């Protein structure tokens, strides 16, 4: 894993990103009666060569963030700057050009490859769409090279996706994502559909490709252990917003937001010795509906620390006042009025 500090020039800069899906009623005269606030104000930066992990539970908006980054959805508000240029307003040729630089790896290896195209056609399609990326005579060689890079036999170009296992299909999906030599890869749950023993293969592959191709990753997942393994920095999302963000050790070993603490404490650790010592924070209730987000702090309805202030005042994602003058690992951005450090993951034994 290459380690880059967040002070390096950002390759991706996301500010105030919002995506609301309107809820309408009526067949002919549609009336808006509300909105699903899938993403509700997300800010982060991604440095070159860095991996930013985004974790959160289902419905927190992390997959919508992935779609917005890849321009598969238009944001309701906010900007996404790729090397300084806002890509949310682009269309036509300019949009097509920027797509070359941001590619996506999908979650489900079974629906992300067209079952009626050969592997060669699937990986070669980027060159059909962007003919300037590779001269025609050279494409086949490049496709085979890509197969080789992701660890598949280059002879497989004429096979169809159903002849491969889940892990192999995910490699094909990664090869397609690499074809145009993008600088950023957005991976939305790339291993959650795979078996445990195959997950490690794909994670190692992504690790290796990052250094080989100088890639920057946005790695979206619900599995906190995998995110820690692959990420340099981690953002925790809850109900459409990032509630805490920082370097991996800051988030995992020194979390200051109660939601992060609860999330981490709930992850089962594969160590039976630890099961009596661990303190679990069991959250009450369910995540509120994204159509009806609580006022003030959006986590307050499930938070054991919630007070009057949390109902009135929206906490900003910034280094909390108590830690502002310290330089320790707890001094990272956390959107909580009452942030305090709490160790929930058992300390490393080494």
């Amino acid at each position: 894993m290459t380690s880059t500090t967040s002070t390096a020039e950002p390759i991706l800069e996301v500010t105030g990103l919002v995506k609301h899906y309107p809820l309408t009623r009526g067949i002919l005269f549609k009336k808006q009666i509300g909105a699903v606030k899938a993403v509700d104000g997300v800010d982060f930066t991604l440095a070159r060569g860095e991996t930013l992990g985004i974790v959160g539970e289902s419905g927190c908006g992390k997959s919508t963030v992935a779609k917005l980054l890849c321009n598969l959805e238009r944001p309701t508000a906010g900007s996404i700057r790729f090397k300084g240029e806002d890509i949310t307003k682009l269309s036509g040729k300019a949009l097509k050009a920027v797509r070359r630089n941001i590619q996506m790896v999908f979650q489900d290896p079974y629906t992300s490859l067209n079952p009626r195209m050969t592997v060669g056609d699937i990986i070669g399609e980027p060159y059909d769409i962007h003919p300037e990326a590779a001269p025609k005579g050279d494409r086949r060689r490049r496709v085979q090279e890509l197969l080789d890079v992701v660890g598949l036999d280059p002879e497989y170009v004429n096979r169809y996706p159903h002849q491969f296992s889940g892990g192999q299909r995910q490699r094909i999906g990664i090869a397609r994502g690499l074809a145009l030599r993008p600088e950023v890869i957005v991976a939305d749950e790339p291993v959650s559909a795979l078996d445990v023993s195959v997950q490690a293969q794909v994670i190692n592959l992504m690790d290796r490709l990052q250094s080989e191709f100088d890639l920057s990753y946005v790695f979206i997942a619900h599995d906190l252990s995998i995110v820690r393994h692959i990420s340099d920095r981690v953002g925790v999302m809850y109900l459409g917003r990032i509630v805490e963000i920082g370097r991996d050790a800051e988030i995992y070993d020194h979390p200051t937001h109660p939601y992060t603490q609860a999330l981490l404490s709930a992850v089962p650790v594969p160590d039976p010795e630890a099961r009596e010592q661990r303190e679990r924070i069991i959250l009450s209730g369910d995540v509120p509906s994204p159509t009806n987000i609580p006022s003030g702090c959006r986590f307050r309805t499930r938070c054991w620390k919630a007070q009057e202030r949390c109902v009135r005042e929206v906490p900003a994602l910034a280094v909390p006042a108590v830690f502002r003058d310290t330089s320790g690992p707890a001094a990272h951005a956390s959107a909580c009025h009452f942030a305090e450090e709490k160790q929930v993951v058992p300390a490393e034994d080494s």
Partner: protein
Amino acid sequence: MPDQQYEPERAIAGTGMGGAMDLGASEAATLERTPGGPEGTGPAGKPRSLWSDAWRDLRRNPVFLVSAVVILFLVFISVWPSAIASGSPLKCDLAKAQDGPGPGAPFGYDGQGCNVYTRTVYGARTSVTVGVLATLGVGVLGSVLGALAGYFGGVWDSILSRITDIFFAIPVVLGGLVLLSVVTSNTVWPVIGFMVLLGWPQIGRISRGSVITAKQNDYVQAARALGASDSRILLRHIAPNAVAPVIVVATIALGTYIALEATLSYLGVGLKPPSVSWGIDISAASPYIRNAPHALLWPSGALALTVLAFIMLGDAVRDALDPKLR
């Protein structure tokens, strides 16, 4: 750190772009066992595509070959009926009415004393033309409109859905009686036009549904993320994955159209004598089914064979377009 023995085996194949290959070769080796057709195991020779693979597959499929031979034969006699039948289908001799097979009339004679063999051969032209052209028209119009509605959605989809609702409410036979009774031309065209007009919503609805299903797959998102145009997504990604149900319904509909032509003729609004068609003959022979079953049997048999041939062809094409079945 894990010891050396416990490290994953280093692959031998990692020459392409340098860099250690972690598990490529071993995982690739296992693929040899995954079931696949004999075509799948060959070396990477010529690049192949869905269509060339489908054609290779079809050429070896006996179902396809048999149905193709039958259809080619039908086309042949439609174009050139005198090649296998001498005499005119309109030359009838009441004295021979309802007679059995005789010299020059292997299928016997119908109620009007016409040669059933000659009439069946000459009837192929009308019936096959009506069936094939009506199906083509319905298939093309229905699948294109349905696909556009399903893909782009929104207002156009709502409008199209309402239109198909209205068309579904029109009873076919009654619609035929009303619309075709004002037509004076005794050709197949008004009949085909009527069938396309009333038939496309059925295919349109199926096409719309399967396009919407195909559209939700991640590979469509992946193509979009690569910058693919709408026409590319529709033609390369959605159409091949949405076409199967359309083919099935269209080939079954083909038989219905030939039969519908017969019904309309029977009701006196379709083709009228002296036109020759299986439909006309079937309806003319039905009253005499007890005395002269052969007059009904032969044109009905020809109709059934034609419908079967097209259904088999449709099945074979659908299967050939599905790589999982190879």
